[in-house]
């Protein structure tokens, strides 16, 4: 537990420096060219270096740093163990790459505000990754919701952009409230918020424990963009810029979401088998649903966003298996996915910048005009589909081994089907965008500027480096993280290239996907229509139509439910309004009219009343009372 100061303020750098410089950038005026970009890249680089040193420094015992924060007991406690250091490394890496990439993205709104948000998101992500106290983690985690909202909002005009922004904000906001309640319950059960102390006596799924776990799961899944809560990502893809898509939905969200899923499922809780099945089921469903939707998309970024959702399914499946190989696969897939998905979104940004459109039916034959982008696309597409030498194959292999080890072969087949369809959709995408005939208006498209090319190349390089037996990432990142998660690995061979039965299945997958693509191409004649034979298949046609109208979208369903619920509540409110306002005043008015009508009687009647009352009083007083 080395808490000497100079190491501890290493922790502060990735959190405070971006936070302060974000406000600095706000002061710089819009007109200065490149000053803002340079500053933000410099800061990102600084944090990246800090994260590397932290990664090296973290030995057996994690680095602790605590600041008094809330009242007498709650400290803002940071704890850097291997997993957090690994995550911090990933976050800073992608922040640097995106700040470089974002220089020449056009439709990112005022660049001043974009970089302000970029830095704030970076500091928030770093904060939530490093913090050990659940409240502090929630503090950083939830503050990202606002930035999501503003990112999408500033990246375009018109009704659809604002609708998407609102949708993102609401889905993330409400799931964060659920997560808050989860954390409160965890705090209530184990009356401490420090993850490290909770992990010593793990929580079990009983009574409040289950509710807490479900709530935390909702938070993690929404951030990761898994099945029920994924619908904001495609909408965001349509309406926001590539830099944002490459940064948040592709990298940061996945990293944080899966990190937190790993923390709660393995570090804080010891889950029982039923929850294991549920997790794996969610993973599998996410894979299938998202990839089916991805297959039929005709917009470049929307297709990629659906793939992002489907890849998350693999990670959840991996971690859901709860056995070391599966978890290792999940974590490894997390970093791989971040790298190739971000690279793919960058290629889409480059294509969009050069050709001005995202619709793949209008694109074609760009390979010769944009060679570097095309090559990067091919490398990334190959790794996402799990082609052998690239990193995707190895992490998927681990996930497959985990699912097989857990005994649920059904999920294994679902995963395999998922990777077939992934390969098919990328073949369709690649073929229609980079190969085939090039429309006239795109004849003179040039290659994307260097600021875009460099990050793409770097990411493609990572895909390759992390491939080929994957012993560097596994030994450097995955094994230490597993140890810090408290998972005992034993002597299973994680890394390494094994040509066993899985490799053969992989080959079969490739063949099926290629034949399906050729059939689709032959049938429709156009590259971008190659998935129509699936799109218009008898049963699928209706489900696709319903999906487009938003029947499965949790946002639309809940909007309808809440509107109905609010209607009832409004009626209750009107009832109470009548109860305390209309009814009493009506009664008083009626009573008062009766009394004043009694009043206007003539003398004789009043005289008679007076004598009557006198008589009654005397009888009441004398007669009855006296005897």
């Amino acid at each position, binding site marked *: 537990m080395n808490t000497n100061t100079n190491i501890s303020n290493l922790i502060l750098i990735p959190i405070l420096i971006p936070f302060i410089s974000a406000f600095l950038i706000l002061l710089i005026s819009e007109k200065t060219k490149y000053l803002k970009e340079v500053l933000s890249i410099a800061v990102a680089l600084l944090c990246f270096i800090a994260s590397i040193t932290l990664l090296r420094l973290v030995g057996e015992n994690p680095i602790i740093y605590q600041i008094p924060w809330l009242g007498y007991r709650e400290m803002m406690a940071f704890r850097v163990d291997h997993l957090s250091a690994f995550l911090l490394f990933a976050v800073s890496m992608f922040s640097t790459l995106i700040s470089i990439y974002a220089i020449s993205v056009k439709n990112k709104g005022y660049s001043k505000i974009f970089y302000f948000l970029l830095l704030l998101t970076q500091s928030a992500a770093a904060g939530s990754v490093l913090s050990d106290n659940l409240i502090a983690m929630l503090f950083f985690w939830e503050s990202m919701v606002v930035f999501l909202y503003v990112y999408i909002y500033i990246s375009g005009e018109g009704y659809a952009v604002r609708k998407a922004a609102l949708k993102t904000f609401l889905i993330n906001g409400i799931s964060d409230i659920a997560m808050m309640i989860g954390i409160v319950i965890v705090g209530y059960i184990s009356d401490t918020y420090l993850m490290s102390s909770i992990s010593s006596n793990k929580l079990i799924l009983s009574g409040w424990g289950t509710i807490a776990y479900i709530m935390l799961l909702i938070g993690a899944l929404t951030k990761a963009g898994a099945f029920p809560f994924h619908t904001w990502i495609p909408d965001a893809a349509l309406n926001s810029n590539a830099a944002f898509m490459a940064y948040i939905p592709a990298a940061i969200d996945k990293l944080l979401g899966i990190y937190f899923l790993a923390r709660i499922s393995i570090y804080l809780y010891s889950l029982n088998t039923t929850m294991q099945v549920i997790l794996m089921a969610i993973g599998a469903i996410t894979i299938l649903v998202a990839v089916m939707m991805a297959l039929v998309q005709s917009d470049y970024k929307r297709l990629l966003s659906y793939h992002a959702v489907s890849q998350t399914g693999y990670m959840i499946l991996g971690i859901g298996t709860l056995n070391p190989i599966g978890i290792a696969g999940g974590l490894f897939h997390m970093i791989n996915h971040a790298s190739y998905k971000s690279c793919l979104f960058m290629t889409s940004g480059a294509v969009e910048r050069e050709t001005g459109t995202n619709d793949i039916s209008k694109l074609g034959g760009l390979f010769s005009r944009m060679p570097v982008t095309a090559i990067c696309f091919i490398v990334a597409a190959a790794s996402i589909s799990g082609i052998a030498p690239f990193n995707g194959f190895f992490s998927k292999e681990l996930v497959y081994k985990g699912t097989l080890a857990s005994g649920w072969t059904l999920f294994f087949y679902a995963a395999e089907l998922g990777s077939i369809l992934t390969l098919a959709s990328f073949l369709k995408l690649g073929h229609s965008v980079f190969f085939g005939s090039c429309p006239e208006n795109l004849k003179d498209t040039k290659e994307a500027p260097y600021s875009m090319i460099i990050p793409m190349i770097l990411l493609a390089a990572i895909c390759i480096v992390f491939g080929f037996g994957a012993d560097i990432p596994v030994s450097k990142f995955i094994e230490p993280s597993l140890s810090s998660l408290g998972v005992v690995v034993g002597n299973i061979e994680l890394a390494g290239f094994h040509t066993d039965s899985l490799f053969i299945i992989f080959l079969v997958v490739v063949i099926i996907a290629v034949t399906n693509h050729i059939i689709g191409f032959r049938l429709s004649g156009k590259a971008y229509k190659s998935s129509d034979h699936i799109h218009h298949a008898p049963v699928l046609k209706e489900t696709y139509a319903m999906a487009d109208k938003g029947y499965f979208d949790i946002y639309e369903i809940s909007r309808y439910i809440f509107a109905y619920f609010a209607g009832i509540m409004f009626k209750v409110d009107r009832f109470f309004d009548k109860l305390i306002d209309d009814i009493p005043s009506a009664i*008083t*008015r009626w009573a*008062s009219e009766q009394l004043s009508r009694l009043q206007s009687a003539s003398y004789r009647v*009043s*005289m008679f009343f007076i004598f009557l009352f*006198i008589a009654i009083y005397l009888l009441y*007083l*004398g007669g009855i*009372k*006296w005897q």
Partner: protein
Amino acid sequence: MAIDLISYSLVPLFAALIIPFIPRKHRRITEIIANITLLSGIINLGYVIIYYLVLNDYTSYTSDAFTTLMLFTIYLVGMAITFFSTYYEVEKDTNFSSYYSLILVSVSAMCSLVMSRDFFTLYIFMEALSVCSFALITSDSKTFSIEAAIKYFFLTFPASVLIIFGISLLMINYGTFDFDTIKFTSMNFLTFVSLSFIILGFLIKAGIVPFHFWTPDVYEGSYSPVSAYMAGIVTKVGGIYAIIKIVMLLSSYGFGSNLSKLLLFTGFLSVFVGAIAATVQKNMKRMLAYSSISQMGYIILAAATFSPIGIIAAVFHLINHATFKTVLFLNSACVEKSTGTTNMDELKGLEHRMPWTSWTSIIALFSTAGLPPLSGFWSKLLIILALWQSGHIFYAVAALIASVFTLAYFTIMQKKVFFGKLPEKFNDIKEAKYQLLIPVVVISLIIIFTGVFFNRVFPYFERILS
């Protein structure tokens, strides 16, 4: 008969007898005489009371606190009315000389009534008072006021019958009228019948609910300052004072439970009927009439507890009610003078044209409803405490709930009369003359000061019982 206080009833009587001898054209002189007599009365009464309020130690205090307090209220209201009416109807010269003399006679009758030590003199002066007020009601000779006067006469004459019958039975039973010598040792049947006759008679005079048929018409119909005078002090001294006196006598002997049940029920009835009936009234004065019925009900409720705190609360509320009811009626008189009508449906948005009237009416209004720092709140609180301590928790809660109705009909009045957009036919109305406003403002100040300096006022009230 407290000899030192007798001058307070003789001087106005004497002044009243002088006034007819002044020739008719010297109207000013009659007004001056009337005002001077009442002013002198107030000054030295005021001096006596305020001296003790400021000094705040009562070791050397000898005279009867209750009577001095009542005298002070009578003179205060009398002064306000005479000063108000000198400037009220300047152009239409009603037969002002007899008007002022009648007021002076009624003031002297009330003073002697308050100072009387036995039932018979009480009865005489009550009769004199009702005769004077009968005449005063008709003083603006509108057909409606004459009809009101006759209604007043017809509906209160059973009271005199009952009271004289009760007194005579008491005479038979105890052989004397004198308050001090009557010993209510045992509650035999005859005392019981006679006392209930007397109390019923005075209830009719006070206009409490089962017998309240004359109050609204009289207050609405009569000449405006006179309705203020009637509501302010006449029905109180004529009706409630005697009941409080009897309650004082009986309480020292510690019985009279069935009498208290009668009074409690009547008080409760009049509080609620008055408050509810007032919410829908069209005419401002009629609404104030109902409000005064309900406030009278509060006084009866307080008196009915037969406990020392109850009596103090009753007297305190009597005096408070005298002050804010006079203010409210004089306000309605000012409104009537400026706009010519007190029908609330025609009136609207007078707030900016008549700021003083509106603000004094708000002070009086909220004191009636029992807004805390004002005097009304303290007296109402004492009433509630008295009721609660004597075990009648239901009546205490009901009394408090009724104050919500009080606030209801007053906010309705404020909404109709003072708020809203001024209709064009009232465009040229001006605030009432400053002379008309002086009595109203002075009494509002009294309301505020009794409220805020309650800690000085209360010890004085504790002297009533000794």
